């Protein structure tokens, strides 16, 4: 606990608090505006943090994460357009409640639920991370390889769209990470004769392209899309103590679901909020009220999606494995700041680790204060014309990529991956597994090759080492599960048709 208190003391200074506030506010704004995402904001901010102190940079990025997940509630409630994918379930009950004349109440319930869940997941973050990293220090190369394999299969199995398409996306991401110098032999591979590829594709331009530029393209294509707007002026957005008492069980349950979903590597806030919403509905005495502006629906969805943020930070800090797509970008931030992600981070940079955990707590407090006090002003930002916002954001993408290494090739990479990212989304190929594969491929390949060197080419340790074997079995089960489920569904459909 000493480390946490020390970190709290450090973060109480003007600049850390300023960056946490700035990150949270920007995250809320970006999360609230449809067409702009938290991933986009964090990817865009990465080049700017290059020139900042490492702790300030990371606490700002984590605050952006917290703000972005929370900000999606505003447009989900007032516009029926989720500001972030994680707020999709909130539209089911938030918008009907707002339409019925209670937008302030809908927002108050969502903000309160987000804050409560943030605190719950912070507790788990503090309690679990250090013990998990102590276990992970004992991981060998085979354990790391099978852990990465499990993360990839897991995210493919829950990503929207078909399972095989999710796997395809993951493998594509891994292939994109391959060009450049081979770490073992020093030889070049997959450079196609281009010297610019000798150092491989820089992570940041690829991330900016895939998340920011592809979104800009999608927004330009949908520029004529209009949404009905609900006015929230003159209404208070605060959860009462009575609501807190009534919703306590729902809050705790949804927070726990979100936290545990967040901890599982590769899954994200969307799945957390879907699971929590479905569970709340199934356990409710009045399930028919869900989808009509029911309080329980808003609370379940918003509590779970915020809880995934703290949960996802657990594997990121303890294992160096991203718990979600945004965590994959945060992993990139650690690498860009010359830090080695993984369990040794506790040993090499304990002050940074504790600062990240405490920043998450402070960001949640700022999120609550900003959203409660300024929600009506933030809602007005929805009227900011995209016709000016999009060109400015595109400009930041181009300059940010160029500023990284001062070379035009990175700008070409940003624009190319913007088109590739848009084409992938248009084809129904999810971007989440792509980014996870991109970030984890070097870890997986290095782990496998060094493990095989140590075992003299034998693959048996994958099976004979208990932790590695467990991860491998889980990976195989997760791989087979979608096919088994499809087989069972077909049998059930066939049996239903046969019944008289």
């Amino acid at each position: 606990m000493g480390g946490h208190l020390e970190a709290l003391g450090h973060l109480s200074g003007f600049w850390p608090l300023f960056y946490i506030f700035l990150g949270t506010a920007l995250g809320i704004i970006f999360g609230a505006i449809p067409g702009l995402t938290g991933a986009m904001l964090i990817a865009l901010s990465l080049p700017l943090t290059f020139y900042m102190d490492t702790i300030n940079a990371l606490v700002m990025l984590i605050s952006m994460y917290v703000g972005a997940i929370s900000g999606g509630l505003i447009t989900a409630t007032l516009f029926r357009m989720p500001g972030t994918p994680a707020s999709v379930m909130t539209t089911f009950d938030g918008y009907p409640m707002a339409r019925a004349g209670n937008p302030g109440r809908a927002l108050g319930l969502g903000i309160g639920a987000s804050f409560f869940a943030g605190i719950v997941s912070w507790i788990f973050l503090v309690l679990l991370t250090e013990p998990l990293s102590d276990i992970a220090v004992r991981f060998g190369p085979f354990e790391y390889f099978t852990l990465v394999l499990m993360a990839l299969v897991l995210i493919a199995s829950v990503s929207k769209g078909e399972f095989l398409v999710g796997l395809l996306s993951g493998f594509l991401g891994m292939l994109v990470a391959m060009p450049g110098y081979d770490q073992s032999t020093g030889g070049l591979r997959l450079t196609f004769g281009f010297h610019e590829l000798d150092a491989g594709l820089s992570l940041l331009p690829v991330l900016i392209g895939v998340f920011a530029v592809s979104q800009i393209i999608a927004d330009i294509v949908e520029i004529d899309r209009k949404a009905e707007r609900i006015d929230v002026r003159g209404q208070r957005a605060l959860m009462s103590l009575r609501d807190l008492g009534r919703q306590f069980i729902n809050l705790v349950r949804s927070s726990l679901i979100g936290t545990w979903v967040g901890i599982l590597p590769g899954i994200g806030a969307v799945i957390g909020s879907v699971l929590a919403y479905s569970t709340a509905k199934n356990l409710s005495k009045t399930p028919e009220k869900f989808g009509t502006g029911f309080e329980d629906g808003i609370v379940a969805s918003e509590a779970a999606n915020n809880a995934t943020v703290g949960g996802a930070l657990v594997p990121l800090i303890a294992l160096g494995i991203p718990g979600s797509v945004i965590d994959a970008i945060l992993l990139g931030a650690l690498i860009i700041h010359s830090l080695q992600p993984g369990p040794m981070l506790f040993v090499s940079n304990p002050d940074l680790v504790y600062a990240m955990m405490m920043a998450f707590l402070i960001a949640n407090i700022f999120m609550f204060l900003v959203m409660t006090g300024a929600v009506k002003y933030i809602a007005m930002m929805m009227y900011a014309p995209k016709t000016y916002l999009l060109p400015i954001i595109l400009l930041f993408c181009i300059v940010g990529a160029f500023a990284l290494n001062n070379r035009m090739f990175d700008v070409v990479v940003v624009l190319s991956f913007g088109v590739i990212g848009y084409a992938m989304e248009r084809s129904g190929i999810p971007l989440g597994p792509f980014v996870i594969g991109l970030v984890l491929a070097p870890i997986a390949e290095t782990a496998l090759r060094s493990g095989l060197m140590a075992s003299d080419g034998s693959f048996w340790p994958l099976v004979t080492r208990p932790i590695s074997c467990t991860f491998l079995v889980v990976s195989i089960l997760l791989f087979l599960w979608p096919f088994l489920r499809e087989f069972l569904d077909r049998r059930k459909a066939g049996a239903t048709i046969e019944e008289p």
Partner: protein
Amino acid sequence: MASRSFLAFRIGFGAVLMIVAAFAYFEAGKAVPPTSYEPLGPAAVPQGLAVLILILSAIMVARAAREYGRVKSATRGGDAPAYQPRYDLAAIAAALTVIYVLLFGLHIMSFRWATVLFLTALCMLLNRFRPRQIPISLAVAVAFGFGIHYLFTRVFVVGLP
């Protein structure tokens, strides 16, 4: 059921992925061969990934092609989108972006003026050249063109063309 345009896009993109995977397989094979102390070598993983991508892309294309034949043409009515997708705007925006990058990348124009021109053109394009928006577009372009240049060259001390 997926629309025809979605399936056509998927078939096209899947075909491109198959070609890229095939190229990647052969290119990866040119890497340094494995040494005696390392059984796998630098080519194994990229080649393995290329094969997996080829197989999965082929399955995706085959499934999309099979479904394409079953999908009826889209009809007018309740399922039509409420807005018209503007692929033309996106294509022109992409062309403007390429011209912009070439302008300052090839040192034909300084970053500041290339940015002012680019932002003006793109803002006016997205506003459909409405006369009232032209002064605002110009103001935004000048503010951000010069502002970004100042931010990066004086605050972050990063050289810009």
